[in-house]
Structures are given as C-alpha cells and as structure tokens.
C-alpha cells in the first residue's frame, strides 16, 4: 500500500512566522502535490512537482513556496504566515511516466493511477 505521511496532524502558528509542512511518500512516486481544503471550495492546488528540484505553480501559489530536494519528500513553506492561510493542507503523490524532450517536460503522461493522499495537516494561524 502507498503511504503518504504528513509530519503533523495539527499545527498552531502565529502571524508572520515561517511555517514548514513536510510530506513523505514511500512508493518512489515522481509526482507530488500540495492542496488546501476549505469548506465549500473543495481542494485547491497550491504547488506540484514532477521530479526532484522541479516545481510548478498550481491555482493558488501566492504566499507559498515548495522544496523538493529528494524524490520522497515535498515540503510546503509559508514564508510569512497570515490568518487567511488557516486551513487543512493535504499532500498527495502519484506514479506517472513523464515524458521529457530535452530539458523540457512535454506535459504528457501516461498513467491512470489516482493520487494518494496523506492524512492532512490542520493549520491554524493566530
């Protein structure tokens, strides 16, 4: 079974703090994702990564950054936490085959596997 582990289930931080959320997967998946989940809004993609040291902005990247130094680990960073970043944060990973043409990703993948999610981190910013 795929295991996606998020470092904390609950986290309370103060406005202006730099916050790190960690996610580790044990299945050698290339792709990893960070979402936030808010009532009535579903899941919104913050950032994702196709491979080590590669990252792509999702739909709501403002105020966030990410780091992928190792294949199994994907970190979400709140540079200066604000109260509107209070939310549930979900990490996911999936196994895909990315096609690279030279140094560019073509964006075409051929895997149908679903994304596997961690248990989530409920983050409160005071």
């Amino acid at each position, binding site marked *: 079974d795929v295991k996606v582990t998020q470092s904390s289930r609950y986290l309370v931080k103060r406005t202006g703090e730099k916050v790190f959320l960690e996610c580790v997967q044990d299945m050698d998946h290339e792709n990893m994702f960070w979402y936030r989940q808010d009532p009535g809004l579903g899941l919104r993609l913050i950032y994702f990564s*196709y491979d080590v040291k590669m990252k792509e902005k999702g739909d709501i990247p403002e105020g966030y950054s990410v780091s992928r130094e190792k294949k199994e680990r994907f970190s979400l960073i709140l540079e200066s936490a604000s109260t509107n970043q209070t939310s549930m944060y979900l990490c996911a990973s999936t196994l895909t085959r990315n096609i690279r043409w030279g140094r560019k990703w073509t964006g075409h993948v051929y895997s149908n596997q679903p994304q596997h999610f961690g248990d989530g981190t409920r983050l409160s910013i005071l």
Partner: protein
Amino acid sequence: ELKVEQNPLFLSMQEGKNYTIYCNYSTTSDRLYWYRQDPGKSLESLFVLLSNGAVKQEGRLMASLDTKARLSTLHITAAVHDLSATYFCAARPATSGSRLTFGEGTQLTVNP
C-alpha cells in the same frame, strides 16, 4: 481553464433509498476520478474512469462517465449509514499532465 461542479453539495437520504451525485466539467478531460473522505480523514480513491461510457461498480456505488456531455455520475443504491461521507470528483484536463481539478464535494448523510 477546467472547472468542475458537483450537484448537490449536501445530500441527506434515508437508508435503503437510491440517489445520484452529478459531476459536470467544463472542458475536455481524459480522466475522471471519484474520492471519498470521512470526517477527519484523508481522501480515499474510489473509481478511475478512463473513457466515454466507462462504468465502474463497487458494492452499492456505481460511477459512470459521458465525455460528450462532460458529465460523470455516482449512483448510490440502497444506501446504508456507512456510506455517509463527503464525495469528491476530480477531472484531469487532457493536456495537463498529472494535475487534477476537484469539485466542491458532496456531503452525504444517510439516516436510519
């Protein structure tokens, strides 16, 4: 930009009844996923639908996909309390790689 809408957002039903959750998406998608989330828990994959006319069934849940109508349905047959959860659909744009766009979720409550 792909948008995914679910209907209804809240559903309260009695045990033993049938009902359908609808998932509409706005642009071409080549993959449609259904997930379940229990309160305080993570998302669990239910179905992956890959082509027009695809139908998948697991227990009392059946999912189908009509790519021409840009519609997927999740049909619940003879609901039981254990099916109470939030159900999400997610679509993958045809050219987006592995990223998904999720619907708002349907919160299902099955009453005895």
